[in-house]
């Protein structure tokens, strides 16, 4: 038994005003109340801290199978838990791509038996992620896939995307689209605008994201199927999603910690440090502002990391030669909290916490919908946040193999200090 005393409880929807105690027994939350006594319980004093449902990140590049020198399921799982997440979704752009039931099964089985966060599999939309033929989406659903995505690339043609949307409509597993019109982005390196003009590097225009989002919205309207847009980075695309939601279409989206906190100036001010090279690229200051407005008004459904770890031998190159990606699993919660604090708390904390918990949980298949909430009887996946904790991002202490992190050495405020998965304390720093 574990008794967490005196925390401010966030149950997935609302922050409770008065401090509450939470009693955990056998993987479950068994009791919530103002003053619980339990003699044999391990007591944790959480006063002044916020107790939340375990955080969920639906977009992580685990790199296994195939690229284990960059990250593997075990290191990623430990990194996720250290970063405050109890559940993460593994992107399928591995080697081989996760495009069949046996591969989904491999990730699913391994993913629930790791020593950190549980890792749930996403499968490819198309066979071999090549955009030509639909993968066995039904068999992958049965094997435990929680999203279908060709992430790293958009679904190659509108016809295949439409077919896959129809096909998945009754499967209960969403398609996650990486929105990018690739004929406009080929060779692109940085945001088209300030960064491309100053550097001469090929720009990635906001319109490339917008065009693919509009395509997805149109096909969602045609098929009646839900579609989820991941790592949305531009004001243009956000506005299209906002309008689609107003129309009542089953359209959802997520935004990354880096697009909420960094902009294209970081590429220039850092003098082309490749750690700022990411796809979609860091955008304009106006785009960052638009993303925060979308967080505030409910257009955004989830925060993600898009954690993309690289071995530094691969990443530490001149900007133009380096691969895309930022590793952030172990600091992304703090990045968002710190940015939110610095912006003067422009959104209620409740909303921020929803986007880490109940809101992404609602995008998962029904079997996982219990995640992201704290109720008596619910699974004891919990994240404890200390909004006053100020700590340096120290890559030496990371569980992740990735070191390509723009916040290295920075002091951020607002950290996860304890993570509990299925009733077990996996990490405690209080």
């Amino acid at each position, binding site marked *: 038994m574990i008794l967490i005393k005196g925390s401010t409880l966030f149950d997935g929807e609302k922050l409770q005003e008065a401090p509450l105690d939470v009693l955990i027994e056998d993987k479950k939350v068994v009791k919530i109340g103002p003053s619980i006594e339990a003699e044999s319980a391990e007591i944790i004093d959480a006063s002044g801290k916020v107790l939340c449902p375990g955080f969920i990140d639906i977009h992580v590049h685990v790199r296994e199978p195939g690229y284990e020198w960059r990250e593997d399921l075990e290191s990623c799982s430990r990194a996720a838990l250290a970063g405050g997440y109890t559940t993460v979704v593994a992107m399928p752009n591995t080697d081989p791509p996760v495009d069949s039931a046996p591969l989904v099964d491999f990730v699913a089985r391994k993913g629930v038996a790791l020593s950190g966060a549980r890792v749930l599999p996403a499968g490819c939309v198309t066979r071999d992620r090549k955009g030509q033929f639909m993968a066995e989406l039904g068999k992958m659903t049965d094997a435990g896939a929680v999203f279908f995505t060709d992430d790293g690339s958009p679904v190659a043609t509108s016809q295949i995307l439409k077919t896959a949307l129809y096909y998945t409509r009754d499967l209960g597993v969403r398609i996650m689209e990486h929105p990018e019109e690739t004929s406009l982005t080929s060779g692109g390196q940085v945001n088209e*605008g*300030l960064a491309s*003009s100053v*550097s*001469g*590097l090929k720009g990635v225009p906001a319109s490339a994201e917008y065009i693919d989002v509009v395509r997805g919205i149109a096909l969602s309207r045609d098929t009646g199927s839900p579609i989820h847009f991941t790592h949305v980075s531009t004001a243009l695309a956000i506005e299209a999603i906002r309008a689609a939601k107003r129309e009542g279409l089953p359209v959802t989206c997520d935004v990354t910690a880096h697009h909420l906190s960094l902009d294209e100036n970081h590429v220039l001010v850092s003098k*082309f440090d490749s750690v700022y090279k990411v796809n979609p690229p860091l955008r304009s200051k106006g785009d960052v502002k638009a993303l925060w407005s979308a967080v505030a008004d409910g257009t955004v459904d989830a925060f993600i990391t898009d954690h993309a770890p690289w071995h530094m031998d691969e990443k530490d190159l001149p*900007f133009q*030669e380096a691969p895309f990606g930022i590793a952030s699993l172990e600091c992304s919660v703090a990045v968002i909290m710190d940015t939110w604090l610095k912006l003067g708390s422009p959104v209620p904390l409740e909303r921020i916490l929803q986007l880490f918990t109940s809101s992404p949980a609602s995008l998962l298949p029904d079997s996982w919908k219990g995640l992201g909430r704290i109720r008596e009887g619910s699974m004891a996946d919990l994240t404890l946040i200390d909004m006053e904790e100020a700590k340096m991002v120290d890559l030496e202490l990371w569980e992740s193999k990735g070191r390509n992190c723009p916040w290295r050495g920075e002091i951020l405020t607002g950290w996860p200090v304890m993570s509990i998965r299925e009733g077990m304390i996996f990490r405690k720093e209080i």
Partner: protein
Amino acid sequence: MNWRHRNLIDLDDWTREELNLFLEQANYMEELLNRPIKKVPALRGKLIVNFFFEPSTRTRVSFELAEKMLSADVVNWSSSGSSVSKGETLRDTAWTLEAMGADAVVMRYGAVGAADYLVRKLKKASVFNAGDGTHGHPTQALLDLHSAWKKRGDLEGARMAIVGDVLHSRVARSNIKAFSKMGVKVVLSGPRTLMPVDMVALGAEYDPDPRSAVGDADMLYLLRIQKERQEQGLIPSLDEYHKRYGADNELVGSAKKDVLVMHPGPINRRVEIASEVADGEKSIILKQVRSGVAVRMALLYLCLGGVRN
């Protein structure tokens, strides 16, 4: 004035005062070049590596001449036949050069950010950017500035028209910085498909009509149009480019009478420049080349411990 720069990556952090001092120093170097015995012992015992990953004749030769005039020991390291072609990374090659005792590395490299990267990786050797992709080519800008300044003196209030492929031009980017700092107003012209989207961020204006862009110009700077821009579909044909934007006597005629016609070389005749202009009396293209050696001598001298006051 103490010379605070040890490297030259680009001209962003050079002040106007520093540029003026630099130009005087380059003039002094040019005088040396006119003496019967050109060599001076200023950098005797310094090892400079010319590290060129892209084909370059004039920049490499110009640096090498400058180094030799100052009595430095010079090593030329090119990518073909070197460790780079065996898969060694830029970082490892750079560390190797430093271990061999290089005091300075002059580098041309195809990737944007390569020179900044090299500065971060080297522990003590100076770095001189001889071109990093589309981003910067500061010694070209310095020699252009020197050529114009010698002809015109103070450039405050002067106007410069840059016509051509600004989008892919490291020369244009560095030149806009250098000339703007000296009080020159820079106007860009050329087809939209060869222009950066945000020209205000570069500190320049855009005029789609080359005739009005060139009007009142004290300097007309032409950029090389690479054949591959046509292959990429950014311009329909080189001939169409020449007809609309190429510098012929008519276009030059819309500028000031004593306009200086400049080009970084190598020139494409009948593309961005007609022979009548290239070889005409307003062209200072070959004078730019001569400035190149003096300017690079001044740079190496100042940054590698020549004068400190």
